[in-house]
């Protein structure tokens, strides 16, 4: 049995404003083992980023509240971590790559400074010369010439900036890397380069990764496990083969696949899920997806479905009434 690294139990996150309460994450359960890559897939507003921010303890103060649940990293419960503990964790044990490399670097500091900053914070005994040598090594690792380390972010292209962001995130060789849409802002050929780099580094450093994306193509390329999120819940989860090759799927997952134009077939019309994501301040009763579901039954409107395993190995789970009896 693989060793557990991250375990999220029954996590509920809300954003409280004066007018309403936004239920961003509802009863989320998730496990990531050491060295594993889990793809968290969903549309805008599904709660993917909120889940990652709760792990990073970066939820906005005052408004973003973890109502219930536990996030365990190795044996530490980070939901109750103090400010001091959080600082030790961030960048050192967990780090995060954000979506937009253009805005996630400080434009007034050199690339060397920004990478060395993480090291200086977490590896206090490193001497200045060592730091500089380590920065060179890291830059080489992400495929950038160390000779350019004295340059500023604006002197780099988008793909190179994302390499710098990856360098910062991996500087302390964290155990868990949260990557929030790391290639969405990049061109396809650059995306292919960055994904290849991430795959190589992950193997080399044995880092586990939570990859947040809306692109099932990226998932097929890089992930070991997949969780599909809808309205703050995981509605289907499994090994990569379960999601891409099994014949049992949540209707929403089917809709996601049907919305992508298939290159191998000539289809005249796409067959997407109609309608929109429900309003997170006013979630429907029963199954959150029932309003848009093509296979909606009476029970779906009133009763929340339970989680069912579709196979004997218990790797593939679906949260849908369709699977409640026979499987």
């Amino acid at each position: 049995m693989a060793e557990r690294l991250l375990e999220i139990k029954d996590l509920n996150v809300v954003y409280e404003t004066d007018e309403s309460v936004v239920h961003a994450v509802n009863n989320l359960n998730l496990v990531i083992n050491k060295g594993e890559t889990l793809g968290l897939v969903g549309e805008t507003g599904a709660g993917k980023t909120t889940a990652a921010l709760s792990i990073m303890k970066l939820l906005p103060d005052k408004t973003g509240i973890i109502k219930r649940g536990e996030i365990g990293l190795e044996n530490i419960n980070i939901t109750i971590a103090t400010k001091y503990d959080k600082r030790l964790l961030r960048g050192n044990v967990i780090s995060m790559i954000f979506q937009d490399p253009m805005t996630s670097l400080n434009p007034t500091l050199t690339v060397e400074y920004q990478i060395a900053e993480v090291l200086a914070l977490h590896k206090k005994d490193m001497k200045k010369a060592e730091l500089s040598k380590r920065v060179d090594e890291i830059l080489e690792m992400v495929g950038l010439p160390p000779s350019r380390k004295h340059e500023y972010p604006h002197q780099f292209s988008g793909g190179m900036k994302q390499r710098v962001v990856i360098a910062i995130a991996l500087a302390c060789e964290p155990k868990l890397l949260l990557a929030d849409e790391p290639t969405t802002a990049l061109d396809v050929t650059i995306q292919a380069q960055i994904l290849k780099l991430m795959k190589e580094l992950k193997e080399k450093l044995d880092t586990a990764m939570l990859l947040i994306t809306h692109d099932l193509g990226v998932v097929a390329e890089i992930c070991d496990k997949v969780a599909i999120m809808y309205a703050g819940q995981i509605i289907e989860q499994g090994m990569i083969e379960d999601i891409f090759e099994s014949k049992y799927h949540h209707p929403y997952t089917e809709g996601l696949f049907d919305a992508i134009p298939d290159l191998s077939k000539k289809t005249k019309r796409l067959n997407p899920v109609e309608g929109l994501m429900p309003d997170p301040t006013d979630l429907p009763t029963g199954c959150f997806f029932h309003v848009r579901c093509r296979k909606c039954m009476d029970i779906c409107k009133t009763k929340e479905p339970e989680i069912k395993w579709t196979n004997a190995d218990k790797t593939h789970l679906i949260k849908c009434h369709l699977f409640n009896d026979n499987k």
Partner: protein
Amino acid sequence: MEQPLIETKNLKKYFQTSEGNLHAVDGINLKIFKGKTLGVVGESGCGKSTLGRTIIRLLEATEGEVLFKGNNILDYGFEEMLNIRKDMQIIFQDPYASLNPRMTVSEIIVEPIKVSRIITNNNKINKKVSELMDTVGLAKRLVNSYPHELDGGRRQRIGIARALALNPEFIICDEPVSALDVSIQAQILNLMMDLQDEEGYTYMFITHDLSVVKHISDEIMVMYLGQAIEQASSDELFENPLHPYTQALLGAILVPNLSRRNENKEIVRGEVTNPISPKPGCRFAPRCPYFKEDCLGQEIEYKEVDKGHFVSCVLYNK
């Protein structure tokens, strides 16, 4: 032979910068026939949006001709242009930035009608607005909403309704679905294809997403640093890509299944080079895996290697 609805001849758009001329669009020849869709694909900075904007004169061309039904619209004066704009419309990429936040949905859709004065009777205008909203699938109750109250998919429908308001013949779609989620993207693509079937619109569809472009286009043109490097029918281009850059682009598509997961893919190295004062020769040469000396120093011919299949690469210059 049938006359194309839109044709460009050696169209160029240079921007002056302090370091020299930036060749955003550099000698594009294209033809789009009535009721067809031309997809224009390329990575950021290849000049695809500039091409679209130059064709409908949101930007003034540096050189070349744009023929609409055989007439060069670059010679048109203000009045003539106002007239021809009814027939040529554009849908913009970002439904968040392309709608005036201080105008209601109906005001946005009505604006082109008011500007061109094709309908002046207020009752008729209101009727037209509700027709248009119906066509693009916007609920009547949204008529007095402001853009910020709506989600991206609905906003893009407003952008489409606005483009359709004057019954244009030719619509430039500049990445109309890139900012949207997949299921919304599919809804909008379906809508656009239905409209084409019903009304016979002609589209120029600009995008960086290859699976979308294959889905919607009859013909595809691939651009690299301001130049067209390959053009063919949609099926032909995907089955038989000739230019190394097209091959690299197609190779970089991530398909949502596991068939190509463990394949060792050829990934094109490097990044797009500087479009300022480019030297003669193939602009893809520095990244090309088949680089030869012939690639530089001379302009590469844009050659028809098969019927309707054009490519500019020395590999096919026999």
